[in-house]
Every structure is written in C-alpha cells, then in structure tokens.
C-alpha cells in the first residue's frame, strides 16, 4: 500500500518536474513548479521529515514560486528564445549520465549509517528536544549562522541591482491595491493569524518540527500580503529601522556565539543555558529572516512610473 502511494507520489513528482521543465508557456511552467514543490513537500512528509517538509513547502515551493511568478510578470515583455534552444542528444546523455551514475552509486554503495546515534546521544545536552533544531542551532550552529548571513548577502546582491537614482525610493514595484478591496480585507485578517502561526512554529521548533526559518517564512508571507494591500508602507533600502531588523537576528546569533568563548568555546551553549540561548537566537533570527525574505521578494527599488 505504502509502496503504491510512494509510486504515485514519485510519478507525480516526475510528471510535475517534467511539466515544469518542459511545459509550454512560462506561467504554466511556474505553476507546475509550485505543484512540483508541493509534491516534494509531500514526499518529505512521507519520509517523516516534517521540518524539511515545512521548509520545502514554505520556502522551496511557496517563496520560490512567488519569486518565479513575479519574475514571469516582469519578463512578459522580454524577447523570449525558442524552446528548447536545441534539444540535442549530447546534453541529454550528459545529464542522464550524471544522474544515472549518482543513482547507481547511491544504491550500490552501502550507507555508513549516518549520525543517528551521535545525534541521539548529544540531544539531551543540546537544550532542545527536536533533533533537527539541535543540529541546526547547536551542533552545526555555525552553518546556520552563515546561512542567515547568506540571506543577507543575497539581499545585498538584489539591492545592488538598484539604479543609483532610485536608491532613495521604497523597495519593490509600485503597488496599486484598491482600498477596501478583497486583498485589503484579507490582509487585515491574515496577519494576526499568520503571526500566531509563525510564532508557534518558532516556539514549537525546540521540541517539534518547525523553527526559525519556517516561522520566518510565514511571517514574511504575512508581511508581504500586508504590503501588497497597502497596509504597510514599503521601506526604503536605507531605512534604519528596517536595517536593524535585518541585522538583529544574525547579530544576536553572532554575539551569543561569541559569548560562548567566555563559557569555554566558540559557539558553545552550556547545557544549562542552552535552551534560553537558542530561544533568544531563534526569536531574533525569525524576525530578521522574515524581514530579509520579504525584502528579497520585493526586490530592489524600482522605477515609479506614474500611470
């Protein structure tokens, strides 16, 4: 039964992927991609990795889809190349070769067993109950710290695309939400719910699936809807408060990590204080991630053409 479910799931994934890659029409391809993302999230659920499933759904399918859709809209007028450029045999063989070799090796070579045991043994000392969170924020906190910085770097790269004369303008495209419209109504309703969900995800992350990234994504989504509805004024890139919001999470993470030096080592969370420290980090990180993701989606300041 499960095998059948797996089969169907895998077939769906492949079909969605093929449609996303090879589908005619950009918009359709993007929609298929979102659908593909959801099937992948399902697959993660099937694999029992709820944290990843959440992240895939929120980030891999959701935010990425949002970005793609925005890009599709912006590219509507751009000259599009033929599709595909030329589907020769050689590239296909190359792709198949790499993928096939990977699959073959992955199946043929016995696994070493991963780090189940080690993670399990260390979990009590980590300050959290969710092993994934423990890995993310304690065992491999350095990765996560860098990761949060990666988002910031991406935002800087996006901002770098702004034209010099538009730097003082608010980020994102000009929005024309009708006051009192559906969007506004939704936007008034959603944020409180979204904030609650987001905060819960963070809080739960310590013991159950969820965490700063997933929570941050939800908050970002909420913020975006509010912004789209015109409820929140879009910030300028040089806005001090927004920059503080962007920097707060990584900064707190860095300071907490550095404080570990006083406690015996870099990025060290003594078991007794670990929970409090991690939670502090997570709260600020969520805030910053939300801000960063939202700004990433909004993009650089863009020309305000009066209609």
């Amino acid at each position, binding site marked *: 039964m499960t*095998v059948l479910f797996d089969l169907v799931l*895998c077939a769906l*994934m*492949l079909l969605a*992927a093929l449609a*996303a*890659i090879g589908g005619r029409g950009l918009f359709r*391809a*993007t929609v298929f*991609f979102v659908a*593909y993302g959801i099937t992948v999230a399902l*697959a*993660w659920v099937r694999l*029992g*990795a709820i944290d*990843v499933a959440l*992240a*895939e759904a929120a*980030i*891999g399918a959701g935010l*990425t889809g949002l*970005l793609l859709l925005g*890009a*599709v809209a912006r*590219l509507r007028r*751009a*000259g*599009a*190349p*033929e*599709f*595909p*450029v*030329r*589907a020769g045999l050689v*590239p*296909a063989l*190359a*792709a198949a070769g790499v*993928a096939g070799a990977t*699959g073959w090796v*992955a*199946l043929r070579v016995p696994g070493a067993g*991963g780090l189940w045991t080690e*993670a399990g043994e260390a979990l009590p000392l980590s300050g959290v109950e969710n092993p*994934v969170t*423990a*890995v993310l924020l304690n*065992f*491999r906190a350095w*990765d996560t710290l860098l990761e949060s910085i*990666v*988002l910031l*770097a*991406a935002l800087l790269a*996006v901002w770098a*695309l702004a034209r010099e004369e538009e730097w003082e303008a608010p980020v994102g495209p000009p929005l024309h939400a009708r006051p009192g419209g559906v969007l506004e109504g939704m936007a008034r309703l959603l944020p409180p719910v979204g904030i609650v969900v987001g905060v819960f995800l963070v809080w739960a992350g310590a013991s159950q699936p969820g*965490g700063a990234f997933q929570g941050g994504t939800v908050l970002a989504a909420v913020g975006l809807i509010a912004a789209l509805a015109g409820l929140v004024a879009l910030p300028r890139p040089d806005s001090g408060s927004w920059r503080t919001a962007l920097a707060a999470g990584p900064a707190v993470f860095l300071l907490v990590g550095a404080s570990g030096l006083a406690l015996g080592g870099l990025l060290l969370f003594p078991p007794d204080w670990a929970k409090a420290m991690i939670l502090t980090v997570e709260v600020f990180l969520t805030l910053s991630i939300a801000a960063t993701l939202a700004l*990433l989606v909004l*993009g650089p300041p863009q020309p305000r053409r009066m209609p």
Partner: protein
Amino acid sequence: MTGSVVLFVVTASALIGIGLWGFLVQAHLLRRVLAFNVVGSGLFLLFGALGWRGGGVDPVPQALVITGIVVALAATAVALWLVGRFAEETGRADLPEDRREDRQEKSSAGGRP
C-alpha cells in the same frame, strides 16, 4: 521499506537528471532558474532518501537540507532579480551566447566584445 528507498533514490536521481537537462538545453533564463530548483530539490530528496530509516530521516541531513533550501532560495532570488534587470536593460530573457541567430557570428568572431 527497501523498495521505497530504491524508489525514492531513483526518483531523486531522475529529478536531478531532468533538471540538469533543462539547465543545459534551456535558453530562457527563468527556465534555467527553475531547472536549478528542480535539481536542488531532487538532490535534497536524494539526501533524505539515503538517510531514511524507519519512521524518519537522519536529523543531520534534515538540518543540512533545510539549510540547503534556504541557500537555494537566496540564490534563486538573486538570479531572478538579475534576470529581471537583464530583461529590463536588453529586452531579452536569454543570454547572447544562447541565441541561435548569433551563433554563427559568435563562432567566427570568437569571444565577446
């Protein structure tokens, strides 16, 4: 369960292959980014499938995959905004070297301006 592991591994590999093929042959930049994401998720899925035991996945790959997803998002965002700016400036959604009409000229002139 082994059967499912095989299934997921094969599927993940196939996703990687599909994405890779798309990346190689597509000229439209947005489709390239899309293909990149397909490869990425296939790869993550492979990671998960290989770390799959019983009711769950090895927590370390899970954490790594989450990190990977976020990093991929960051890269995607940068790429997409770049594509947008590029289209704004040139009116095209593909790079010059991938345009068929230019190819003849390219190979004879050799090198970009």
